């Protein structure tokens, strides 16, 4: 089944991973800016990083027939450094017109500090000033529930924010309801250990339905799985779900959300591409 991986840090992955994703039906990837595993030393480093995920990764993906798009920001972990954050955010606008940039992301919180929250609000302001889509990272493990609540409250307090143009990612059992109830898109990231497994993601689709829900691998440099989305597809099939429901989650929903950015092009050759319009 053809699918779109909404969240994959391909800068950390091998060409073999690109090839495996292509062979399992991946037709498009969106790559949010993230933490490299170490704190970068200067704002200039981020410009090189942005060039890599907008130009070089797009070329690597194209080599196996996958369209590659990017989201730009200073990630929540480095966003605690307000001086660095302000300098990096000031450098983002000149990249926003790049043909593969879909919006601002993955912004959010890490340890739920006041500095992180201030940087998050700066990013939201940047997105609103430039009419950008937003992709949001919610904190890990014990920090997720509190951080998701803080993020939602901050977004709802900004009257310019349209929840239909915001994807809140890394939701799990204790956070997905608050995201969907507030009108945002909810992302399930398919990790072996620290986020939602494919089986638990399927449980949440069964409980909450497919509306405004997407899945992704969120594969990166850590313990993660670039085959997360096709593994989810298999899990859903093994439970007897209709192909149409699975296709909606892994292709049609991502297309509906991403098509709000005019630069996103539905991958050619999709059997249902012509039928996909609007936003849930």
């Amino acid at each position, binding site marked *: 089944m053809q699918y779109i991986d909404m969240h994959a840090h391909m800068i950390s992955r091998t060409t073999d991973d690109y090839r495996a994703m292509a062979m399992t039906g991946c037709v498009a990837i969106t790559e949010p800016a993230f933490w490299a595993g170490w704190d970068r030393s200067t704002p200039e480093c981020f410009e090189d990083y942005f060039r890599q995920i907008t130009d070089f990764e797009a070329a690597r993906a194209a080599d196996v027939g996958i369209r590659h798009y990017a989201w730009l920001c200073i990630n929540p972990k480095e966003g605690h450094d307000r001086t660095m954050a302000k300098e990096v955010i000031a450098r983002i606008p000149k990249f926003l017109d790049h043909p593969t940039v879909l919006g601002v992301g993955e912004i959010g919180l890490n340890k739920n500090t006041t500095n992180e929250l201030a940087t998050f609000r700066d990013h939201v302001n940047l997105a609103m000033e430039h009419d950008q889509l937003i992709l949001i990272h919610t904190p890990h493990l014990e920090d997720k529930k509190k951080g998701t609540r803080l993020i939602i409250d901050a977004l709802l307090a900004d009257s310019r924010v349209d929840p239909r143009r915001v994807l809140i990612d890394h939701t799990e059992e*204790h956070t997905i309801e608050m995201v969907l109830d507030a009108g945002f898109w909810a992302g399930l990231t398919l990790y072996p250990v620290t986020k939602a497994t494919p089986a638990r993601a399927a449980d949440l689709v069964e409980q909450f339905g497919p509306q405004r829900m997407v899945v992704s691998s969120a594969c990166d440099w850590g313990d993660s799985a670039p085959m997360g989305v096709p593994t989810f597809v298999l899990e859903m099939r093994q439970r007897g779900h209709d192909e149409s429901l699975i296709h909606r989650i892994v292709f049609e929903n991502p297309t509906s959300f991403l098509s709000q950015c005019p630069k996103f092009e539905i991958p050619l050759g999709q059997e249902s591409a012509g039928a996909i319009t609007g936003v849930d």
Partner: protein
Amino acid sequence: MSGSDIVDRYFLEARSRLLDIAAFLDRLDRSSDSAGPEDYRVGALLAAARELHSKDFGRAKRIQNLLSDTTTEPIETLTGNGAFGAWRQSENV
């Protein structure tokens, strides 16, 4: 899926994970000091495991909540960047 279908498909996986937890606790018993068994994360895990005896739907969500930070205000001081899977109240309050 029917109940029997679910048991057929997932029982062995659940059994394996239960044994992993038991073996983890046994491993701690065999450790060279008492630091492991006294770790706040182990206590949180054992407390959350009580939910497995519940007969009410929503066990996964309740376990997630039991392992989560229950405060509501952002913190001023960053003491570390990592997350550990269970909330230690003294770090945040």
